[in-house]
C-alpha cells in the first residue's frame, strides 16, 4: 500500500533522513521507534507533504506522492495527526472535526456520518463538541487530533507521538482507540517514544537511529531483540 524508497530529506545543511526505505501493507499497524531527532517525525511530515524530500520516492496505492503538497496527499488518502497537535484552538471541537473532512465538504451527509463514527470512537468528544479546542485536556485534544485526521476518511493514518504528555491511563485509552480504528479498516503508521504501548498494538516496527533505519522486524522480533529491550523498553 505504501512504499518508501531511498528517501533523503535535509533541513538546510543537516541531513534528517538518509536513504530511508520502508513499506506498509493494507491493514497493518507499523510503529517507528527511535530517540528524539532520529528522523521519525521527519519521515511522517515528508509523507504527509509538509516537507519536500531531496531524493527518493513515496508510492501510495500506485501513485507517486514525493513532493506533492499536503492538501493533495490528504486527497490521495493519507492523513497525519501531527506532533504538536496543530488544532484550531479557537474553533469548536465540532468545527475542528468538520474541517478534517474539508476534501469531502460537499458531501454533507458523509461528513455527518464520519463525525458520528469519530464520536463512537471517542464518546467524550460528543459532550465537548461545542467547546473551543483549546479548552480541552491534553488527552481530549489528542482525541480531536486523531478524530480530525479520520474525518478525511484516510486509507492510511499517520500518527506522530500521540502519547506525548499524556497520563498512562489516557495513553492506554488512545492506543485502544487506534487499535479499534485499525480493526475498522484504517492502516496506521505510528511514530512513538512509548515503545511499550506502541508494540502492544503494532504488527511490525522499524527502529530509527540518526536518520536511518537501524533495525526492522515483526512485533515479536522487536520485543525479543536485546538492543530494543535495553534502549526502548527499559528491561
Amino acid at each position: 500500500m505504501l512504499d518508501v524508497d531511498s528517501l533523503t530529506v535535509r533541513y538546510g545543511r543537516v541531513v534528517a533522513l538518509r536513504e530511508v526505505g520502508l513499506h506498509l501493507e493494507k491493514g497493518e499497524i507499523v510503529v517507528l521507534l527511535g530517540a528524539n531527532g532520529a528522523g521519525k517525525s521527519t519521515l511522517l511530515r515528508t509523507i504527509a507533504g509538509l516537507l519536500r524530500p531531496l531524493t527518493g520516492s513515496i508510492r501510495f496505492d500506485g501513485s507517486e506522492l514525493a513532493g506533492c503538497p499536503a492538501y493533495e496527499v490528504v486527497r490521495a488518502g493519507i492523513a497525519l495527526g501531527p506532533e504538536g497537535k496543530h488544532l484550531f484552538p479557537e474553533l469548536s471541537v465540532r468545527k475542528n472535526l468538520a474541517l478534517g473532512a474539508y476534501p469531502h465538504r460537499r458531501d454533507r451527509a458523509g461528513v455527518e456520518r464520519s463525525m458520528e463514527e469519530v464520536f463512537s470512537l471517542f464518546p467524550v468528544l460528543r459532550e465537548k463538541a461545542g467547546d473551543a479546542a483549546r479548552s480541552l485536556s491534553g488527552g481530549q485534544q489528542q482525541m480531536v487530533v486523531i478524530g480530525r485526521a479520520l474525518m478525511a476518511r484516510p486509507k492510511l493514518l499517520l500518527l506522530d507521538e500521540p502519547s506525548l504528555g499524556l497520563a498512562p491511563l489516557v495513553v492506554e485509552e488512545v492506543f485502544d482507540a487506534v487499535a479499534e480504528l485499525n480493526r475498522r479498516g484504517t492502516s496506521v503508521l505510528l511514530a512513538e517514544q512509548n515503545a511499550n504501548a506502541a508494540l502492544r498494538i503494532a504488527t511490525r516496527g522499524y527502529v530509527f537511529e540518526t536518520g536511518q533505519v537501524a533495525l526492522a522486524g515483526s512485533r515479536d522480533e522487536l520485543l525479543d531483540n536485546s538492543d530494543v529491550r535495553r534502549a526502548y523498553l527499559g528491561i
Partner: protein
Amino acid sequence: MTLFFQQLVNGIALGSIYGLVALGLTLVYGVLKIPNFAHGALYMVGAYITFVAAVVYGMGYIGAIAVAVIVLAGIGVALERVVFNPLRHAPRLHSMIAALGVLLFLEAGAQLAWGAEFRRLPSPFSGTVVLFGLPVATQRLLVIVAAVAVMIGLSLFLKRTTTGAAIEAMAQDRAGALLVGIDTRKIAMLTFAISAALAAFAAALVAPLNLISPTMGEAVNLKAFVIIILGGMGSIPGAVVGGYLLALVEVLGGTYISSSFSQLIAFAVLVVVLAFRPTGLFTRGV
C-alpha cells in the same frame, strides 16, 4: 443636544469606514501575518475607480461601487500572487518592505493616471433625512447602513460557511490547515481579495463626503493600524469595535475638547490602551 446628536452620527459614520478598512487589514494580518502597509493605498485606488466609473463612464453611483469592489478584489489577488506569495518563505521584513513599495507604486501610479489635484464625487444621496426629529445627511446614513450590513455579512461568511472556517483555520494554524487538505494558496488569494474589496467599498462610500486625492489613503492607513493594534492584531471584533471607538473619541473629542486635538487623540488612546493591555483589547494573553 442637536450638536451632540449630529456629531454622534458623524462619529458612527466615520467609525463604519474605519471598521471596514481595519477589517481588511486585520484579516490579511491574521491569515498571512503580513502587515500590509499598502492597505490605505488600495483604499485610495478604490475611491478613484469609483470616481472614474461614475464620472468618466457615467455609471450610476451604485454600479460604480460594484465596479470598484470587483476591480480591487482583482488587484488584491494580483498583489498576493505577484508580490507577497513569492516572499512567503523570506524573512518577514521582506514582505513589509514590499508592502511599502506597493504603497509608493500605487500612489505614484494614481498621480500619473489621474493627476495630483483633488476630485469630488457628486452623490445621488445629497439631501438629508429626519431621524428622531433631527436632520441627518442621507449619504452618512447610507455609509452606516451599508457598512454594518457588510460587517454582518462578513461575519456570517466566516462563521457559517466552510470556506469561512478555512480562512479562520489558516489564521489559527497554517500547518493544521494544510494537513486537513485546505489549499492555502487559494485561501491566501481569497483573503487578499476580500481585504482589498472591503477597502474599496469603504472608499466608495466615503468618496462623496471627502475629497479624492492620491494621498487620501495615508491618514486612513495610519488609523487602521492604530485600530488593529488597539483591537488586537488579527482580531475581527477588535477591528470593528476599535474602529467605532477611535472614530467616536476623535469626533466627540474634536467637538468638545479641541478640533486640533482630534488627530492627537487617536495616538493618546493607543498609548493608554497599550499601557494596560499590551496585546490589544480582544486578544488572549499569550
